[in-house]
């Protein structure tokens, strides 16, 4: 009796395992009537893409999967067909363009230099930003602030935001002050800056709130209008990258983003629409 029960249990387990293996196939065939769009990439573009996807899913019969894994990884995924669309917050590198990938500007974004709300310094020149991040200025006193050591907070090497920021400000990765705190992701930088009155960092426009104080650059406020006018210099395009032969559902989604409705969502999300 006991042995028989054992065999029975063993066989049941075996069947469950086999069934589990099978279920993968069935779930794939099921998705045939509900198109799946896979997107991965930049943590800066991610929140915007989430909002666009949410609105788009309400009207269309699609499922959109978004993974925020960073620009480089997203582009790699698009090239290797792991995702249909990659999100990037930096321009493509030559080797990436050579792989035959297409880019689509879906919005613009400003990068804003942020400090602790208690910091009296509210305006910096681009030159001062460079001097802070390369370690030439190490005390807020030199900028007319309190006598506090400056703690620089940067994104990690390879991050799209960091690449874009360094390119615009005009310093190389190797020049970044050595004792800079390195945090992964916009949210992490915001939290670090918000909890440290010495700190200065940079985040994407979408992440600005009252926990950090946004700096003017060359006297220009960090606002969408100023980015479109070209007065605010710390700005960059948000890109969707994809192969030429993406599925129709993905093409439609990208058309939606460029439409007037899509661009309205872009604006509501805190990013800067292509036209105003």
């Amino acid at each position, binding site marked *: 009796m006991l042995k028989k029960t054992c*065999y029975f249990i063993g066989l049941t387990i075996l069947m469950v395992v086999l069934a589990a293996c099978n279920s993968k196939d069935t779930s794939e065939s099921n998705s045939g009537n509900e198109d799946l769009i896979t997107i991965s990439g930049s943590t800066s573009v991610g929140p915007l893409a989430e909002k666009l996807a949410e609105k788009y899913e309400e009207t269309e019969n699609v499922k959109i999967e978004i993974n925020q894994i960073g620009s480089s*990884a997203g582009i790699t995924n698009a090239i290797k067909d792991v995702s249909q669309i990659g999100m990037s917050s930096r321009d493509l590198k030559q080797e990436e363009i050579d792989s035959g990938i297409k880019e689509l500007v879906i919005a613009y974004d400003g990068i804003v230099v942020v400090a602790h709300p208690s910091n009296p310094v509210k305006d910096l020149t681009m030159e001062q930003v460079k001097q802070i991040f390369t370690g030439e200025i190490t005390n807020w006193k030199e900028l007319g602030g309190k006598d506090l050591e400056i703690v620089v907070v940067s994104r*990690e090497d390879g991050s799209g935001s960091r690449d874009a920021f360094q390119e615009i400000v005009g310093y190389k990765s190797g020049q970044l002050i050595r*004792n*800079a705190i*390195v945090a992964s992701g916009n949210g992490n930088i915001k939290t670090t800056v918000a909890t440290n009155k010495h700190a200065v960092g940079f985040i994407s426009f979408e992440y600005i709130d009252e926990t950090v104080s946004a700096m003017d650059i060359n006297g220009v406020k960090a606002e969408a209008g100023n980015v479109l006018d070209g007065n605010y210099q710390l700005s960059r395009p948000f890109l969707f990258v994809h192969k030429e032969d993406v599925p129709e559902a993905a093409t439609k989604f990208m058309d939606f983003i460029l439409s007037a409705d899509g661009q309205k969502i872009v604006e509501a999300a805190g990013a800067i629409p292509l036209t105003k």
Partner: protein
Amino acid sequence: MNIQDKNELEQQISKGNKRKYFLESLSSKVFLACALLSVISLLLIVGFVFYKGSNPFITGGYSFFDFLFGSDWVPSEDKFGIFPMIVASIYATIGALIIGVPIGLLTAIFLAEIAPKSVAKIVSPAIQLLAGIPSVLYGIFGLAIIVPFLQNNFGLARGQSLIAVILVLAIMMLPTIVTVAETAIRAVPKTYREGSLALGVSQIGTIFKVVVPAAKSGIMAAIVLGLGRALGETMAVILVAGNSLIIPTSLTDSVRPLTTNIALEMGYAAGTHQEMLFATGIVLFSFILILNFVLARITAKGAQ
């Protein structure tokens, strides 16, 4: 029951034993497959990490010596030196040991030798539970409590520092050290204690002069296991370390240990940069291997 069993048996015999033997050998193969799965996983992981990580040195023309002892890590400028991280990992681990081992050891002695049953009943499960807390929660605790505490009370410009890492790791290694050391101390034969006490030695004297030396190999194993935990910890450390690329010269410097370098940059890395992160993994893996080797030696000695 007996009659039923007999009937069953007769039925089986009449059908011949073929089916029975088939199921027997089938199930033993299933078990074997399960056992092999872990070995295969290990080989795959090690093989993959070494394959990816050794690539830049074999085909890319990078020098492994420069990789180990270079002090610049600037992937976008093709500079890969992990010396600051090796130093940071070693400092953080040693620091955590200095704080964690005495506390852990005394806790283990207390639980095994001194604590009344009612107290041990509360402390023991609490420590077990500490081991079960996901490591990222330790990190959040460190970021929300330890980092601001250091900033506010010691006037540090940045709370993310070596000392913050050490404190978090010391707490994290406690459960490992306490559990293993307690088991080792409990395994010391009662006659040792009785002999010592009978000779007029005090209880504390007995513990430190007789029981602890007798449990030495078990306690060493506890320390090595705790060391491995501290060295390999990633998620908690990434939040409180600050991840600066400097060779730490004081406890208040922010540091980047080997593990956080991998976790921090892997999402964004491509090409050689990614392979260099795997190479960082090789170095980390070598450290863990050495620790395991030491552990095996210690336990083998204990068994003799």
